[in-house]
């Protein structure tokens, strides 16, 4: 039972999720191969670690990357995949 629980935890910790699904305080590595150009130009591309700092009223996310905060809107956050 304990073994299965660990596997489940490992599975969930490795699964790909969208940025919009992150919880406040969680960190994730962006896995999206082709984020839109206007996201890439801020340095948010495959392999970078982002931390979710909050959510906006309209469903967007506030992420921290490289000491800077970015507000990413809902539509975009629902497109970019990341791994916990």
């Amino acid at each position: 039972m304990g073994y299965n629980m660990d596997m489940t935890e490992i599975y969930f910790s490795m699964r790909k999720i969208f940025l919009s699904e992150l919880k406040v305080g969680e960190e994730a590595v962006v896995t999206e191969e082709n984020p839109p150009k206007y996201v890439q130009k801020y340095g948010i591309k495959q392999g970078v670690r982002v931390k979710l700092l909050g959510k906006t009223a309209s469903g967007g996310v506030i992420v921290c990357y490289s000491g800077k905060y970015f507000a990413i809107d809902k539509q975009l956050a629902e497109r970019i995949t990341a791994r916990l």
Partner: protein
Amino acid sequence: MTKIALCGNPNAGKTTVFNALSGMNLRVGNYNGATVSAFEKEVTKDTSICDLPGVFSLSPDTPDEISACEYLENQADRALVVVDGTSPENSAPIFTALREMKIPAAAVVTMSDILRRDGSSFDCEKAEKVLGIRVFMYEKIEKNQLKSFVLTSEYSVPSCENEEKLHSDLADCVKNRREAKVCAIDRLLFGKHGNIAEFCLVIAVMLPIFLIYSVISPLISSFLEALVDFLRQIFLSYSGGMPYLLRRFVSDAVFGGALSVVGFIPPVMMVYAYLTFLEESGIAPRLCVCFSPFTSAIGISSRAAIPFMLGFGCTVPAIDSLRAVDEESAKRASYVLPFFQCSAKFPVYAAFAGVFFGRKFSLDVLLIYACGVCFALAFGLLLRLFGRQKRICDVVELPRYRMPSFSSVMRSSGEKCADTVKKIATVLLLISAAAWVMNYVTVSDSKSLMQCVSGIVSPIFAPLGFGNDLSSASLIAGVFAKEGVLTSLSVFSGEGGVKYVLRELFSRASAVSFLTFFALYPPCVASITKMRAEFGGLHTVKCVMFQFAAAYVSSYFVYQILNYLAILFLR
């Protein structure tokens, strides 16, 4: 002539360095896109420096970024890269691009105050080794030394090859880097009850503008108006020997015109000071996030919220700042931008509200400004309905909060105040003079020139309830400068005063209809010229026609509804 380009990430402090080098006072702001076009200035006989809009890399996608990249590629001999000391790794793409273009560079590191506050520091020597160029801290050298340092420093092509490696190497240049913390305001804004907090922020930000216009302004206005009237009386009592026509001209056109608008200089100055505070403190980008439901509803980028906010001051800089927004959004925003009521319209609203709504003066002015935002939303939705659908996705950088210096706020508002005084002394004086001459010169059948000219236009406004010559002529004057509406009405009224002429010309329904038309009809000539320069002639014509149609249709419906309600209640 050697051209040194100041380049770097947005909001890294390029304009601050430029101002220190050139001794100028260009506008600085704590958000991405404060500088929207390249600005060049000669600092010595054979050297000029150029302040460029911020870029993250040299693959641009907004007009301001394109202009920065074009300057670097085609004109710059050297580059002075302004590096944000709190996140130097973000400059890595710029250094690798400069290496590819073989542009000699040096780097200046800013934000040392924030690093100090965080207990961190920047290792310049390490950065020099990594980049292969000279690197120095902005605050370690005095401002007068900066110029000689920048001019005499050795510039060399960056030696870095691998962008990924450079990224991590630059990140390592910050010693004792602290993990980013969210401040209390942002925790509230983007926390559990973010909806309420965002709504409160919007109200808190808008409230001072309304307070300035509705509470503080009447107090100061009455004092200044009394002062100008006093000067007019002195002039009249000491100018007995003057030719009659000249005496009347100075009394009616010069003093009369000035009297109508002079009282509004202090509130306009206060609004500009407040807008500067919002820009420099870092609140403006947060407003973009708060306004995102509104901007996404009308299909434009949320970054357009800053131009909309600036629109409450003046439409010209607001159009200018649309350069920081993607082209599609900027074009769509330009249709509704003039619906955000600029400060020049305030004297007209104040005069009408004072005559027709008496005690509820401040509430009415507040209502007019709120209506402007509602009209912008309604017509924006209409445009989206009939225009091409495009999904707008947005990323907004949220800079750290910073307390703006008192001197920079005062300098900015002082410049605007000087502009307003200059406008009164030039454009509005010309409007006053033209209105006075047109009112005085009789052409035929004892009709004045003004009656003949506005007689052609006035039938168009008849269905809106204000098809008289005077109001039509004042609306034409408003095309040149919005305050011109009141100035011309003041000149036409002669000694009776604006209040008298407003009561004579308008009923309550027609006054509301006139204000609706005035609030929505195309902006002043300066704004239209700026729009043409930014978006081209065809788009400007479309915008002007759209705004005229929006004003006409809205005004017609307002007038008809008010008349219907009046008939209904009188029964």
